[in-house]
C-alpha cells in the first residue's frame, strides 16, 4: 500500500513539475483526456468512425514524421508500409483465419521487413533523390497487386475480414489508446539518445559519421521503426474497414500524409498528430460542400503555409513558449526568467 502511495505521489510530482509548467504539455494532456472521454458524451456512430480513422492516420503521420521529419529521410512513398501491412494482415486473416490480435503485429512485422528492403537501396540516396525514389516503391507494388488478382483481389481488393472488436466503442478505445501509446513511444524515442543521433543525421550526416557513429545502422533503424508504426496503422485500418484494396498503396495517400504532417509541423511527432486531428475531421465537415470540398481544403493548406511555413503547431508553440538561450529548456512566454537556470529570457 505504501509503495502504491509512493508511486502515486511520484506521478503527481512528475505531472506538476514536468507537465503543468508548460502550456503545450497541458494542451496534450487535456487533448488525451478529452479523447478518452468523448464516448461518454456522444455515441454517434458516424463521428466515432471518423475519430477512429483519424487516430489511425495520426499513427501513420507520426511514423512518417519519425522517418522523414525527424531523421530527414524524405519518404514520398510512405503508403508502401501502410499498404504492405494492411495487405499482410488482411490476407493472413482471410486465408489462414489468424485472429486480429495476431495479424496486426504480423502486419507490423511485414512493415519492418519492408522498411529494411526499401532502406537498404535507399541508404546511398539522400534528399530529393531519396524522396523521388521512394515514390516508386508503392507504385511497383501496386503493379504486382494487379498482376496476381487471384491472391490480392486485384482492383477490388479483398473483403470480409474479421472486425477488430464487436462494438464500435471497443474499436474506438483500442485505436485511441494505441494511438496515444504509440505516439508517446515515438516521442520518447526522438527524445532519447538514439533520437539525438537521428536528429543529428538530418542536420549533417557527414559530421555524425565523423563523430564515429555508424549512420547506416541508425538510418536503417529509423526505416524499420517507421515501418513498424506505419504497419500497425495499416493493420488496424484493414480490420476496421474490413477490406483491403489498392487504395492503401495510392500516391494520393502518400501525398496526404505529407500534407497532414507538414501542415501540423514536422520534426516534432505531436505536430503531425495535431495536423491529422485538424485536417481529417475538417475534410469530413467540408463534405457538405461536396463539390468544393477538396478545393477549400487545398486552399486552406496553401494559405496556412504561406503565413506559417514551419507548420501550425511550431508557430503556436513559439507564441506561447520561449526557449532559454542558455540551457535550451522551454518556459511559458509570460515568464521573465528560465524556469530551470534562471537566465533572462529576453
Amino acid at each position, binding site marked *: 500500500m505504501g509503495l502504491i502511495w509512493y508511486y502515486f505521489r511520484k506521478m503527481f510530482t512528475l505531472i506538476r513539475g514536468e507537465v503543468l509548467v508548460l502550456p503545450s504539455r497541458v494542451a496534450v494532456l487535456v487533448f488525451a483526456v478529452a479523447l478518452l472521454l468523448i464516448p461518454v458524451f456522444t455515441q454517434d456512430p458516424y463521428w466515432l468512425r471518423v475519430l477512429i480513422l483519424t487516430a489511425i492516420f495520426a499513427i501513420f503521420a507520426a511514423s512518417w514524421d519519425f522517418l522523414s*521529419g525527424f531523421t530527414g529521410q524524405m519518404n514520398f512513398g510512405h503508403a508502401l508500409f501502410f499498404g504492405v501491412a494492411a495487405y499482410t494482415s488482411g490476407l493472413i486473416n482471410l486465408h489462414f483465419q489468424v485472429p486480429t490480435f495476431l495479424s496486426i503485429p504480423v502486419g507490423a512485422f511485414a512493415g519492418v521487413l519492408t522498411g529494411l528492403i526499401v532502406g537498404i*537501396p535507399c541508404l*546511398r*540516396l539522400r534528399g*530529393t*533523390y531519396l*524522396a*523521388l*525514389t521512394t*515514390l*516508386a*516503391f508503392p*507504385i*511497383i507494388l*501496386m*503493379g*504486382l497487386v*494487379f*498482376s496476381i488478382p487471384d491472391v490480392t483481389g486485384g482492383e477490388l481488393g479483398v473483403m470480409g475480414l474479421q472486425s477488430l472488436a464487436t462494438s464500435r466503442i471497443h474499436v474506438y478505445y483500442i485505436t485511441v489508446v494505441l494511438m496515444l501509446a504509440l505516439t508517446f513511444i515515438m516521442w520518447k524515442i526522438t527524445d532519447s539518445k538514439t533520437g539525438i543521433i537521428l536528429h543529428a543525421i538530418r542536420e*549533417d550526416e*557527414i559530421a555524425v559519421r565523423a563523430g564515429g557513429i555508424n549512420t547506416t545502422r541508425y538510418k536503417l533503424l529509423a526505416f524499420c521503426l517507421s515501418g513498424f508504426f506505419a504497419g500497425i496503422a495499416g493493420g488496424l485500418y484493414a480490420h476496421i474497414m474490413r477490406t483491403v484494396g489498392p487504395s492503401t498503396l495510392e*500516391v494520393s495517400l502518400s*501525398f496526404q500524409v*505529407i*500534407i497532414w504532417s*507538414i*501542415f501540423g509541423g*514536422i520534426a516534432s511527432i505531436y505536430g503531425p498528430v495535431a495536423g491529422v486531428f485538424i485536417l481529417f475531421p475538417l475534410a469530413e465537415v467540408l463534405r457538405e460542400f461536396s*463539390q*468544393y470540398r*477538396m*478545393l477549400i*481544403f*487545398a*486552399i486552406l*493548406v*496553401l494559405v496556412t*503555409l*504561406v503565413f506559417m*511555413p*514551419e*507548420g501550425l503547431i511550431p508557430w503556436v508553440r513559439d507564441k506561447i513558449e520561449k526557449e532559454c538561450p542558455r540551457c535550451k529548456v522551454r518556459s511559458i512566454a509570460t515568464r521573465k526568467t528560465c524556469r530551470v537556470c534562471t537566465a533572462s529570457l529576453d
Partner: protein
Amino acid sequence: MIQDIVVNGLINGSVYALLAIGFSLIFGVARVVNIAHTALFMIAAYLLLIGLDYWGLAAPLAVLLSIVVTTILGLICYQLVIKPIREHEGAVLIATIALAMVIQEIILILFKGHYLGVPPAATGFLVLGGVKVANQHLLALGVAVLALIATWSLLFRTKVGLGIRCTAQDREVANLMGINVNKEIMLALGISVGLAAVAGAIVAPLHNIYPHMWMPPLIMMLAIVVLGGLGSIKGSFIASYILGFTEALVVFAFPTWGFLKEPVALSIMILALLIRPEGLFGVAFEEER
C-alpha cells in the same frame, strides 16, 4: 506493332523530355520540387480545348494562346504561393502538391469529370517506308523536336541561357558575379512552364483530357528526372526516351499487361540508381551545410 512502338516511343519520349527538362530546369535554378508542373501541363491542354471548341479559334492561334496564358498563370502562382516560402523545403513541397490539387479541383468544377477530346489539327496519314503514320503524330513529333531544339539552343548558345546555367550551378556565386538571381529564376520558370504548356498542347489531341490527367505523367516525369540525374538537362533528355520507349514497348508488345507500364519504368529507375546513385548524368550538388 513495331511501328506503333517506334512512333509512340518517340512521341512519349519527346513529351516526357519537354516535361522533364522544364522540371529539371526549375529544380536546378530555384531548388523547387514542382509537383504542380504537370498540373500546368493539364491547364494548357484544357486551354487548348477552350480555344478550339468554345471560341472556335484557328489551331495555331489556340496553341499560342494556351502556351502564353499557361506561362503567365505559372508565374503568378510562383509569385503568390512559392516565393514567400522558398527557403522552407518541406513547405514548398506541400505547397506545390496543394497547388496541383487546387488546379485539379477547379477544373473538376468547371468541366466536371468528363473525358474530353480535342479535334486533331491534321487528319489523314503518311506512308513512310511501307508503314502508315498518322499526320497528327508526325505533327506532334515535329513540334516537340522543334521545342526541344529551341530550348537547347537557348540554354547553351545564348547569354540568357548562360545566366540560367550559372544560377543553377551555384546561386550564391552567381549572385556575387552580378547576376540577378531572382530574374533568372523567373526566366527559368517561364521557360519551364512554357515547355510544360507545349507538351500539354501536343498531348491534347492524342489522348483524352480529364481532371486527373496530371498524375500519370507526373510519376513518369519524376522517374525520368531521377534516372537522368537531377538538374542535368542532357540526362533528362536521354532518360525521357529510355522510359518513353519502355512504356510504348510494354503497352504495345504486351497489351494485357499494359497496366504494368509505370511499375516497369520505375523498376528500371531503381535498378539504375542502385548502380549510379546520382542518376545517369547526375551533377553532384554542393551540399549546403
